[in-house]
Each structure stands twice: as C-alpha cells, then as structure tokens.
C-alpha cells in the first residue's frame, strides 16, 4: 500500500517564498492551520512553514539550542523580549524559517514509511510529484482515518 491510497488533494493554501513571517502568522490565524506549504509560482515545493518554527524563532536563542539554558522560569515577565523578537522576525522572508527537516514523500512511497516519517515529526508530510510539484499534504488524521476504516471494514 502506498500514499496513493489516501485522499491527498491539491493544496488550497500555499505561500510564496518571499511572503513575510507576519503574513504567514496572520494566514495561520485566519485559516486556523498550523502549517503552510511554500511553493514557487509553478507549484514546485520549497518547504513548510509551521507555527512551531515561528515560535522557535521567537523564544531566546540561548534557550532554544543544544546545551542552552534549560528553563526560563527565572526570566519573569518576558513579554517585551518576545515582542522584541517579534519585531526582529516579522519582516523576514518566511522561507528562512521553513523547517528544513521536512522531507517530502511521493505517491509511490509505501504507507508504512510515510507512517514512520509522520511519527517522527510534528508536521504533516508534503506529497510531491514530478519536478517536485506539490500534489498535496498528507496529515496524521488522514492516515489514522484510513487505518481505522481498514481495521473495521477489512
């Protein structure tokens, strides 16, 4: 069984790579999503921007990275700091924050492999076709729906 078995359909929501982080944030809020694929005008997949990646850019780098500060309990009310980081990031191109670890799958990718990849990330998987064109997104829920259905109806 491959990814083809799932109802992956063309994405209704994409962003151009030159969109800003602020634009991505407002789109996420308006459309109530946590992930938006970035595509070239021709449809080639460039990366995925997630609300998590934006949040990571807003927390202090000193705590975000390996061997960093382990907790920030002692910082107290750090709203000004977060707003500072907001200011610094709002106009950045969204592609700079795209999650590099998101590797796209293809329609021919075995379902088990896709399940493994999904289990390792917290984003849906982009499904690409020829020349890296984005065909759609494969979500956890899509996979779980399919599996539940199969286990009940054989």
């Amino acid at each position, binding site marked *: 069984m491959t990814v083809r078995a799932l109802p992956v359909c063309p994405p209704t929501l994409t962003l151009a790579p030159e969109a800003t982080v602020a634009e991505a944030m407002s789109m996420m809020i308006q459309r109530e999503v946590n992930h938006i694929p970035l595509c070239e005008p021709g449809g080639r997949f460039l990366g995925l921007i997630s609300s998590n990646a934006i949040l990571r850019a807003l927390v*202090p*780098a*000193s*705590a*975000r*990275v*390996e*061997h*960093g*500060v*382990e*907790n*920030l*309990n*002692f*910082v*107290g*009310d*750090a709203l*000004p*700091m977060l707003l*500072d980081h907001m200011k610094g990031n709002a106009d950045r191109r969204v592609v700079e924050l795209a999650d590099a670890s998101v590797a796209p799958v293809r329609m021919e990718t075995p379902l088990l492999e896709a399940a493994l990849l999904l289990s390792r990330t917290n984003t849906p998987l982009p499904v690409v076709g020829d020349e890296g064109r984005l065909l759609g997104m494969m979500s956890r829920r899509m996979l779980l729906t399919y599996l539940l259905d199969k286990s009940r109806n054989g």
Partner: protein
Amino acid sequence: MHGVVHTTSQVILGLSPLMVSLAVFVLTYAVIVTERINRAIVALIGAGVMILTGVLHQSEAFAGIDFNTIGLLTGMMVIVAITQKSGVFQYVAVKAAKLVKADPWGLMMMLAVVTALFSALLDNVTTVLLIAPVALLITDALRINPYPYLFAIIFASNIGGTATLIGDPPNIMIGSAVGLTFNDFALHLAPVALAILALTMIPLWWFWGRKLHAEQDARDQVMAFDEREAITDARLLKQSLAVTALTITGFVFAHSLGLEPATIAMFGAALLLLLRAAGHDPEHQTEQVHKSFAEVEWVTIFFFVGLFVVVAGVEKAGALKIAADALVDFTGGELALTAYVILWASAVISAVVDNIPFVATMIPVIQNLGSVVGPENLNTLWWSLALGACLGGNGSLVGASANLVVAGFAERAGTPIRFLPFMLAAFPLMLASIAVSSLYVGWRYL
C-alpha cells in the same frame, strides 16, 4: 611519563627504538592537529602502535599513564555533572547581573569574575558551557551585542583556570607529575592570574565596554529576572554545594594528609553519588549513576590515556632527553633564559595546538633539566610552563577546548565567532598576559 625503564626495547625488524617512537609520536601529533579524526582515537592508536612495535612493554605503557590526572579529571567531571543540574550556575550569573543593575559594562566585569572563579574551581569547558547560555540570554534581554561578552568569558575561563591545580588540565598534569600541591598553585599562580584578569578588563573596556549601552526598559527587564526560580532542585543544590566545598577543602589539606588530588576528587564524586542515591530504589539509582557517568567527557579521558603512553614511548627511547639537551644548548642552561623561552614558546604553541599533548611532552623534558638549572630552581620552570600553556589557550579560537565550546554554542545560537577577527583581538591580548607573566616570573623567581 615517570615510567620506570625495566626492559630494553625489542623493536620489530630490529629498527631503532628512537626512530620508531619518534615516527609514532610525530604522526600521532600531526593527525591530532589536523582534527580530521577524533583525537581520542588518534591517541589510542598511537599508544597501541608504541606497544605493538615493541617500543614499550604493556607494563611500561601502564606505568606511563598518570592515573592521578585521570582520577582527578574524572572525579571532578562527575561532581560537576551532578552539580550543574541544580541550576546554581544560572543563579549566580543572574544574581551577578542584578548586582550591577544590569549595566552593560558592569555585567561584563561580573561575568568575567564569575567565569574566572568557576573556572578556577571546575573545569573550563563545563564553566563556559554553563555561563555562555545565560550571558546570551541576558544580552538578548538587554538588546546588546553578545560578542564582547562571549570574548570576555573565553578569556576569563582560561585565566581563571590558570590559577589553581584543578583549574586547567596542564596544571593537573604538572601538579601530578611533579608533586606540586593545590596550595602551591594557589600561592604561586593565583596572584598573577588575578592581576592578569584585572588588567585584561582594561582593553576590553577600551574595545567594547565604554561603547556599550542598554536602554532602561531593557535593563528593567533583566532586573525582573528572579534568580531563585533558576534553582530547580534545592535538595540537590545543598548536597552538591556541600560536597564541592568538602572536596576543595580536601584539596587544600591533601598534601599535609599525604593524599593525592585524585583520591579527594574521586571520593567527593562517590560521596555525591551516594547522597543522590540515598532513598531511591536500586533501579532508579542505577539510572542516576549511569546518567552521571555518561556526562564524563570520556573523549578527553581516553585522549589523556593514549597521550601518556605515546609520551612514555618517546621518553623511554630517549627522544625527550635529546629535546631537553637541545633546549639547554639553546639557553646555555641559564635559568632566566630557560624560563622565558619555556613561557613564551608554550604560549605561542598552545595558542595554535592543544595544550594537553604539548604539556604532556614538556613535563619529562623539563624534568631532565633539573641537573642543569639545579633541582631547587625547577619550580620556576614549572610555573613558566603552566602560565604559558594555560594563558596561551587564549591566543586563538582553537587554543583551548573552552574556546571551541563557546564558539560552537554561539554558532548554534546564530551569533558565530569568526576565527580571524577573534584571533586579531585575542592573540595580542594573550601576548600581553604573557608579558605580565614574564614580569611576575622575573620579579618573583629570578
């Protein structure tokens, strides 16, 4: 390195032990310098080849390993691995920042002092690993450039490490090989380290300090930090501070009790592990102990083991005696000149290569000089070696492991420290610290 020579070497193919040992030595060091292969692997391979080619017998190789150095390092690493979990380092750094009302220049001085102090009592890598993230967090809140602070932390850690027996691996090795005590180091090196730290702040102020400015609202934000919240485990904090204090007291009195530093450090580590384990079921204990041991830097430990054997090989074959004679030829055996040559050469060499293999090699070389400069004058040379090797680490980004740790962290956090710009400021500053050391050595010992 004080391997007793019991046997004559039976080197394979009847080759000259001197040539074989030198080839292994040079090759080992050359590969270490390239940093293409992990240094612990290189040192262990070199050690193995010394034995396999017949330069050393296994028993001589083992005798060459200074287990006092190994034990002291391992013990301290275990103590630090446990202590750091308490959040005490964040506490001290935040407290220090608030004491100076989050003033940028005051903060730089405070962080330098705190780093130097911790580096004197713990190993430098651990210290910077704990201080650098907090420094970055505070400068982030202050909206100021973190680079001068990271620079100051690197310098302070190497200067602080110079001050004590346990501060920096070269001192541990020298102290252990020569029988110099914790108090000897504190009396002879701490004063000059303190002076150098104070003097170093002047150029730092001139380069950066006088131009640093933070907005009042940013400073208020740092003043709102609550350092008490940084303490994650109060019980652990008490235990680890008690054991650390006990261990350091142990170092002070070790010599008069006829004990070696490794015994003190290892016993301290065992005591802290016991306190941690008390009241937990055996399974949980195993997990805790396993975690603590896993944080020991085994790469460094095995690097030492391999190096000691490699150096024992060249020593037995007579190469280090030849090097010592060459040094005497060059200086005419005159004490002052020998001391200055050792001080300056150690500094420049340690700025570009790892000071651990360098010091491991120099110790037997200097031991051979006793008959020339007089045994009573040998300590002057040890202090010169310690000052040169420890302070030399400040000369470049690769001069000391702590520098690389700060650079690695800064890079991950998106504020990379570049090799050349760092060296342009650091190398002259390091030379200045060696000039101060020269004055000190000249004034006190010559």
